[in-house]
């Protein structure tokens, strides 16, 4: 269905709308962080260490005396930066490989699909370790590792969609009209594969946010003193029994972000169900 209709229908689903609202809020928080955060997230106040939530520090402070609310707010930036990076790499790469192998078949398909299989067999976290070992720790390297291990599923999905479509009347008429090559792939085939790829992406992002938090927790993600929710949880682990909020609050933020993408993905998927046509 045309994109405007797709969007309109998606917005009617309560799940998708909820997810979209949360994500929008997240984006706004990330963009306007400097104006929203009451304190500098990296400013350490030794006298104010490990404070419980109070009037001055709404969410309390961590073991270095840094304001948790500010760190939480600034933590939205790496989270969204990650989402953007993964999207920009995964979608185009996965779709391109899938469409080329599905449409042309033959040796091209065999080569591309074997390559896809190889990448698919790589475990994410191990690859992240390898990247970090090669290039040094950092948010971008961790995100890169995640992105480069996510695209194979998209390639497979779009390839099988195209194999189905190859016998459809849409493509038969395009051929009768003499439409071939890039024009066919970009103008006719891509729009048919895009919706399910987007649904998949929304649902994947939910998991990727969790994976990135895991990397951060293990110290493979953002380097200190960057506010990143995963590493904030790690910070809070040592004092978890007495000052539980230091770990719980960023944990909740991760939960809510992941949930938001999940809801959005669910809503998008409902729109694509046959009953909606």
């Amino acid at each position, binding site marked *: *269905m045309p994109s405007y209709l797709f969007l309109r229908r998606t917005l009617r689903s309560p799940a998708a709308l909820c997810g979209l609202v949360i994500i929008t809020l997240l984006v706004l928080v990330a963009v306007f962080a400097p104006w929203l955060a009451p304190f500098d997230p990296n400013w350490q106040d030794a006298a104010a260490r490990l404070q419980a939530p109070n009037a001055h520090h709404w969410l309390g402070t961590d073991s270095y005396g840094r304001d948790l609310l500010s760190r939480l707010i600034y933590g939205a930036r790496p989270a969204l930066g990650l989402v953007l990076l993964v999207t920009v790499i995964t979608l185009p790469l996965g779709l391109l490989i899938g469409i080329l192998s599905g449409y042309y078949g033959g040796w091209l398909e065999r080569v591309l699909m074997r390559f896809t299989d190889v990448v698919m067999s790589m475990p994410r976290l191990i690859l992240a370790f390898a990247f970090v070992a090669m290039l040094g720790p950092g948010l971008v390297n961790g995100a890169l590792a995640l992105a480069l291990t996510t695209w194979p599923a998209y390639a497979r999905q779009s390839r099988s969609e195209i194999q189905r479509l190859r016998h459809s*009347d849409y493509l*038969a008429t395009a051929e*009768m009209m003499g439409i071939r090559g890039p024009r066919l792939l970009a103008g006719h085939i891509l729009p048919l594969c895009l919706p399910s790829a987007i649904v998949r992406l929304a649902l994947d992002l939910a998991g990727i946010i969790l994976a990135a938090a895991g990397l951060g927790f293990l110290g493979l993600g953002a380097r200190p003193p960057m506010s990143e929710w995963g590493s904030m949880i790690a910070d809070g682990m040592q004092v978890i029994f007495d000052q539980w909020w230091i770990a719980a609050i960023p944990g909740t933020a991760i939960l809510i972000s992941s949930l938001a993408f999940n809801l959005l993905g669910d809503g998008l998927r409902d729109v694509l169900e046959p009953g909606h046509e």
Partner: protein
Amino acid sequence: MAIVEVSNLGVDFSAKGQVKTAVRDASFTVNSGETFSLIGASGCGKSTILRVLAGLQREWHGSIKLLNGAIKPGTRFQGDLRRNVQMVFQDPYASLHPNHTIYRTLAEPLTIHGEANIAARVEEALLQVGLPTDAMKRYPHQLSGGQRQRVAIARALLLRPKILLLDEPTSALDMSVQAEILNLLNRLKLQFGMTYLLVSHDADVIAHMSDRAAYMTNGAIGHEFDRAALVRGEHRMDAA
């Protein structure tokens, strides 16, 4: 004068080591300006023959002459041949791309073939099939089945084909819409001097449209019927 000559056409599909013969040893001719029909139950191979003549099914054996030129298996139709042979498909819900406006669906073939005055040609095409010109801004899901089929016919005619292949063009439509589409097809055939090759399982449609017909079972062409035989309903006895 024969515009299509098919001799000993055979089409085999191989899947998982098994060979299925969809068309065996089919021979027939179609004369310029007539409507020739293939009638038979689903799965008898009539649509496959159509797809061979459309250039969509490129694996076949036998000999085929289209518009006074022989065509060879394995080759895509190009140039004039591609323009001269067009097809209208059965399912009006599946042959128009859901993401394209009607304008784009009609303008694209013209653009590719380097035609001029595209906007005017699109308008003309819509009027020819009895659609209002504002239909060009719409998407397929906003049109009814009959309207979509009209767009499909308009598109098939854009390149001024000499041969129009019709694969059950009205079986997905209501009776009264079918009447409109059949009238349209007959009108346009006279207007543009085309030759039709029609495939259907509906004996009444065949009797109304065809000058000659042939019955198919299991991939082989059986009886041929001339106009008199069609009037007598001979094609009907075997018809599914």
